[in-house]
């Protein structure tokens, strides 16, 4: 177990490798939160430009918009406007599950791109875009709309995609959404989320064509759940079981119609605060829909969240929530009983994005594990503030950690498990440390909800207690 002094010394040691300026800058991104006081991470500097010359794990604004927010809207075509690589290398990598016939009425895993060539950069790509929109619409007539996700060159050469979108949208009678999410904007994918939220507001919610369904008293929307490995489904069934009506999923397995219908719900339930707080705030200001954050990782947090959600409704829903919790308790007990002895006391370090650096802590604790280090790739100050309440032991906090820092931290802390992305996976496995890829659940999932907890527990056990770790000699032995 790390204590505060040790952790502080570790940070200093890591910083010593940098030139003075870089060290001074990075020092603001690293901190230790002490047990009980829960203070410390508020003062952290976040959402700043990464140090030049160091390896960062961040993505770009295009990744935030196309990959995260817009991409999973399954009945719309999302065009990666620009060179082919940005879309092709990220295609289907996030495992946002959906139901539908790909290429007929759902397009989630497909890659549409304008495949920019030199001549498009020199002479402009607007004509090509117009042609592409027509072609895509003719080939896939069941699409409900098209979004144009700009890649870097589009912004650099100053194409007027808004004009093309407006004209084609009028011709097709469908929303054609120009998204100015060029990769160079902002410091990370985070700005891409914001830009995507703003375009949904301007081009979908304000389009005012929503066919006002009969709004029910128990209508809610799930925001910021991307259905990775089926996460949103595992969450949705719990809400429905307790008597709520989930009319929209943003945006995992979501549709255009669901988004259009959201302004009529009673309550917006926000899972990933980082990527969808903007639209939640907008809907609160404009339509008066309250929103609340919840956490569906691990039974403790799930029960707590279900009760907090239910408290916003009448006694029918509150009884429903208790019934849901009671019904799942035997299953939860069985899982905890089976896996906790195998995982008790294991220490975990996380370095992920969005909501996970704080949200999954509860699930680990339900299994008797401790999170000793956590950090956000692209968190903002409000994320770090929210993190404090989830921390229960002395924890190392790192914002936008570089490859070097993370390696050093892990080498010295020697956790029993590291949870981060695919780029980190093999580095740590080669160091002899069990690793879970916590962006897309390492090809597993769902991890949300009670069903997700069963899979989460099994996966962690499978990884940590895998016999292979005994067969290799890590470099420090």
């Amino acid at each position, binding site marked *: 177990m790390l204590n505060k002094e040790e952790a502080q010394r570790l940070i200093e040691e890591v910083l010593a490798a940098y030139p003075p300026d870089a060290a001074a800058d990075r020092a603001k991104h690293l901190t230790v939160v002490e047990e009980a006081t829960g203070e410390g991470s508020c003062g952290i500097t976040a959402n700043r430009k990464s140090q030049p010359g160091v390896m960062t794990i961040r993505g770009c604004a295009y990744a935030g918009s196309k990959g995260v927010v817009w991409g999973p809207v399954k009945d719309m075509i999302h065009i990666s406007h620009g060179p082919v690589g940005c879309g092709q290398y990220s295609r289907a990598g996030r495992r946002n599950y959906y139901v539908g016939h790909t290429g007929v009425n759902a397009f989630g895993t497909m890659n549409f791109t304008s495949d920019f060539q030199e001549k498009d950069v020199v002479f402009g790509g607007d004509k090509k875009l117009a042609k592409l929109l027509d072609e895509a619409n003719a080939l896939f007539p069941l699409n409900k709309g098209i979004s144009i996700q700009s890649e870097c060159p589009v912004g650099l050469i100053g194409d007027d995609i808004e004009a093309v979108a407006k004209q084609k949208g009028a011709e097709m009678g469908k929303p054609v959404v120009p998204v100015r999410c060029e990769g160079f904007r902002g410091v990370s994918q985070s700005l891409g989320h914001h830009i995507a939220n703003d375009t949904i507001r301007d081009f979908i919610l304000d389009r005012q064509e929503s066919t006002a369904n009969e709004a029910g008293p128990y209508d809610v929307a799930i925001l910021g759940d991307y259905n990775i490995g089926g996460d949103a489904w595992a969450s949705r069934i719990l809400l429905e079981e307790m008597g709520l009506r989930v009319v929209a999923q943003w945006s995992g397995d979501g549709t255009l119609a669901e988004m259009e219908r959201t302004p009529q719900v009673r309550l917006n339930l926000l899972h990933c605060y980082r990527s969808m707080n903007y639209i939640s705030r907008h809907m609160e200001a404009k339509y008066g829909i309250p929103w609340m954050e919840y956490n569906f990782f691990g039974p403790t947090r799930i029960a707590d969240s279900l009760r*907090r959600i239910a408290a916003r409704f009448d006694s029918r829903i509150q009884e429903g929530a208790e019934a849901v919790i009671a019904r799942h308790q035997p299953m939860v007990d069985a899982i905890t009983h089976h896996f906790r002895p195998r995982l008790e006391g294991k220490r975990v370090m996380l370095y992920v994005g969005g909501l996970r650096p704080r949200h999954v802590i509860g699930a680990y604790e339900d299994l008797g594990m401790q999170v000793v280090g956590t950090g956000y790739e692209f968190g*903002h*100050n409000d994320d770090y503030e929210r993190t404090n309440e989830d921390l229960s032991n002395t924890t190392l906090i790192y914002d936008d950690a570089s490859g070097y820092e993370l390696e050093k931290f892990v080498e010295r802390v020697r956790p029993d498990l590291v949870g981060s992305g695919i780029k980190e996976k093999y580095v740590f496995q080669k160091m002899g440390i069990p690793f879970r890829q916590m962006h897309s659940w390492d090809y597993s999932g769902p991890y949300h909800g009670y069903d997700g907890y069963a899979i989460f527990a099994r996966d962690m056990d499978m990884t940590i207690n895998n016999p292979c770790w005994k067969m290799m000699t890590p470099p420090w032995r």
Partner: protein
Amino acid sequence: MPEIMLRRNEKGELLCYVPKKDLEAVVREVEFDQEERWGGRLYLANGEILHLNPLPARPRLPLTARAHKVTT
């Protein structure tokens, strides 16, 4: 003059959100907290003070407004 958004959190506390700065802090105290006059200095939990031109009535939340920072 940064834009701020005021809302209540689950506990019923007044929250001030400054989008430009990603700052979300509980408002500890509002200078004028009356039915016919609301606003003035907002004392945030993080120690910052913002000034909001007093409104003629207690506002309906959420409220988007302009406020400026008071340097003490």
